[in-house]
């Protein structure tokens, strides 16, 4: 029984990491109706930005709130700039192009960042700086709840509510929904779609930046290909919850994290990735819009 509770804690903690990345996929999909496959590599660059910043500022072995805040800011700013650059240089020129072209470009940007990253950062794994000290919040027998797990979960839930508020309760959010519904009509009504899309990329990429610092403090090994698997899993999570749906992304991510944990615990780790993509296939067959997504007819 103790083990089962521990597995649930582990699963939720893994799921909340997927959630932070999944939110980025969902946001960009919501507004542009495209999967930004480069999102997980923006996250990777964020981790490296924090790594180099910590070394430059000499705070790599100086855990504390200040370090956390500095690294979060560095990572969020670098990710936003990179996200903006990708949008400006790779996606905007293809705005009117068929969906497939943009999708392929996104994959291209992703590979460019992965392998360019190996060239610039080196392919060997680096060690993420000490951000905070992990401590036990409370324990019941051998079952422990650690501060990192709670931090990640809380951050992803705050991010979820923040986004929800942004989209449904602000002027900017209204503009985003307008662009999402119909960009050309929105522009007739005085919304500048390019600016709104750029803003979406800033928010989405900042989330990836937060994610990279949180993952870095929990699993302190970073390398240029680190975004690949976590990105695919987060993408599956977003699809599972209903891509484009903010709450769906978090729900899907938690389901993914928990089910992976249970598979490894009670079956075998060999099935871990198979499960993730099995879920993707099953959901696409039986509920293509995802758990919380609404089925809409494509306008012609």
């Amino acid at each position, binding site marked *: 029984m*103790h*083990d089962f509770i*521990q*597995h649930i804690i*582990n*699963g939720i*903690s*893994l799921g909340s990491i997927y959630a932070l990345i999944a939110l980025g996929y969902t946001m960009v999909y919501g507004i542009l109706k495209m999967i930004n496959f480069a999102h997980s590599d923006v996250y990777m660059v964020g981790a490296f930005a924090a790594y180099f910043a910590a070394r430059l500022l000499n705070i790599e072995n100086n855990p504390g709130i200040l370090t956390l805040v500095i690294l979060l800011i560095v990572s969020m700013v670098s990710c936003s700039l990179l996200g903006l650059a990708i949008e400006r240089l790779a996606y905007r020129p293809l705005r009117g192009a068929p969906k497939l072209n943009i999708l392929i470009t996104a994959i291209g940007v992703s590979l460019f960042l992965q392998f360019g990253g*190996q060239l610039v950062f*080196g*392919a*060997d*794994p680096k*060690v993420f700086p000490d951000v905070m000290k*992990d401590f036990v919040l409370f324990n019941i027998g*051998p079952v*422990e709840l*650690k501060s990192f797990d709670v931090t990640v979960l809380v951050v992803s839930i705050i991010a979820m509510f923040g986004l929800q508020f942004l989209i449904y309760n602000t002027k900017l959010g209204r503009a985003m929904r307008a662009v999402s519904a119909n960009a050309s009509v929105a522009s007739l009504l005085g919304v500048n779609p390019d600016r709104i899309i750029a803003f979406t990329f800033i928010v989405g990429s900042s989330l990836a930046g937060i994610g990279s610092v949180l*993952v870095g403090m929990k*699993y*302190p*090994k970073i*390398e240029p*290909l*680190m975004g690949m*698997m*976590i990105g695919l899993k987060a993408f599956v999570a977003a699809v599972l919850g209903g891509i484009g749906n903010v709450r769906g992304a978090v729900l899907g991510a938690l389901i993914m994290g928990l089910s*992976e*944990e*249970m598979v*490894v*615990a009670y079956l*075998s*780790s*060999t099935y*871990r*990735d198979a499960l993730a993509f099995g879920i993707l296939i099953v959901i696409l067959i039986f509920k293509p819009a995802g758990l919380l997504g609404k089925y809409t007819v494509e306008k012609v």
Partner: protein
Amino acid sequence: MKRLLLALVLVLPLVSGCTKKQNEIVIGEYDSLTGSDATFGLSSNKGVRLALDEINAAGGVKGKKISLVTLDDQGKNEEAAAATTRLITQNKVVAIIGGVASGRSKAAAPIAQTHKVPFVSPASTNPDVTKAGDYVFRICFIDPFQGFVMAKFANETLKLKKVAILRDVKNDYSVGLADVFRDEFKKRGGEIVTDISYQAGDIDFKAQLTEIRSKNPDGIYIPGYYTEVGLIAQQARQLGIKAPLMGGDGWDSDKLSEIGKDAINGNYYSNHYTTESSDPSVTEFIKKFKAKYNETPDALAALGYDAAKILVAAMERAADLSGPAIRDELAKTKDFVGVTGKVSLNENRDAVKSAVVIQVEGKNRKYVSTVTP
């Protein structure tokens, strides 16, 4: 114009492949210079280059200088095979120094065998590697021996009764070590309480470790690579597992302590050599290596160094530099005093030599004991 440029780009590598100098002997090497276990490849490559520089400074082989062509396999089996083919067909190498990882050697060695090009692996410990044929050699001990060493050490020195195994199921090396460890440890009256797996590239091991914790073992055998082992050690300690961790030479990298921090300290692994040795050949090697690269050589660097030295010694003895002539001399290697011990090749073209058990202490590695075959 664009087409002309394209044609040039396509043709250039072909042309450059043909400009081979007559008074040079070309040795090929493929290694993981990038990829997830790049420190192995980079270390081994540094060792090889140090050895060849020394040999060239001393006049080369048969009056000719040796030039080394190193290709990167990116840590992928198919790239290792492609690199080997390219070394043989385009660079016309007389011999190949293989890579570190066993999986990659298994992909590359059969190609060298078909072309009758001698192939020496510095550190591929999987038994199947040299089964590719009589042109394939290795100068390290094999997995069964490493598994045996740790099982013996766990049983005799640490006096453990119940051990859990956590293996990297995608990695030939890890599976090989784990299997032998399991059999040997059971034979010695020990109990394997659980034998579960992870996959290279995973970052979360809490599920497996929670499972292991419930079985309450005296020790955990994790014959994986340093990239994952560092994280596993941290997460094990986070879950309150205090039992000692044990592993193989895949742990041997400075990164292990960087990633594992305090959690990895006090744990044991088997290895090819120890920097604490007072043997003059070892101290001399460490001094030269530090002078050239400004870092302490790990076991992979020492093995790369020995591989190049043994290959060149065979080339020097050989009547000519044809594949069969070098092969025959390589097979006769006996009692070669290298940095990693005395190397003799047996009838399976595997090295027979002793292993050391090392304890991790921060950046330092404490020598614990030597285990002989």
